[in-house]
């Protein structure tokens, strides 16, 4: 037996020291030391969040309509002689007026006594 062979440790001796090595490693790299593999629920914190992707399936919530813009500027343009025109609304009103002239409009509402 050479001197080198005598200085080597047996496999059993090395294996008994492995937990100590792992503990030291976790202290150095700032990781969790969990030798018994106890369930700590950390996998729920590591999960990637999917809320953002699912929320925008039907499109982003920041979408706004033409009426929203019109509502913003109606007060500012009050005395200036300018006004914001919403095409959809004017179209609808024109159509309703046309129907009324032709005689195809909806009948007037009945007067309700109390509600």
């Amino acid at each position, binding site marked *: 037996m050479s001197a080198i062979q005598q200085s080597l440790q047996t496999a059993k001796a090395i294996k008994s020291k492995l937990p100590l090595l792992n503990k030291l490693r976790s202290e150095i790299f700032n990781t969790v030391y969990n030798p018994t593999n106890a369930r*700590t629920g950390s996998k*729920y914190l590591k999960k990637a969040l999917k809320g953002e992707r*699912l929320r925008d399936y*039907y*499109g982003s919530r920041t979408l706004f309509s033409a009426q929203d813009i019109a509502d913003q500027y109606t007060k500012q343009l009050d005395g200036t002689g300018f006004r914001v025109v919403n095409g959809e609304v004017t179209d609808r009103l024109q159509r309703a007026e046309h129907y009324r002239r032709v005689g195809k409009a909806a009948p007037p509402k009945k007067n309700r006594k109390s509600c």
Partner: protein
Amino acid sequence: MPTYAKLFRLPPLRKTWGIIKDNAKRQAFAETELEQLALKNIARNTLLPTKVRMQAQLQLASMPNYTKISQIRNRCLLTGSSRAVVGQVGLNRNKFRDMVLKGELPGWTGGNW
């Protein structure tokens, strides 16, 4: 749920009741996702005392159904139907076929054999 679902705005789609409800579920899930994960973390942690874990689990169970991810279902963006939706496009199979055969979807062609 009915009044709650109408609170959330939608882009100019053809709105069906199913789409409105599903949209509300998506918004609710996105808002409470972190809370759910935190409660799950506590409830599944075996190092914590059982009383704390039970409380977390009860809190998770007491959240309304529409905040759960399992309630969300992909729907057709044009018709609102929930069945046979092609995942990559977000359309029902009939609408998808029509648009492909018209050539309105780039990258998709009809089969030929």
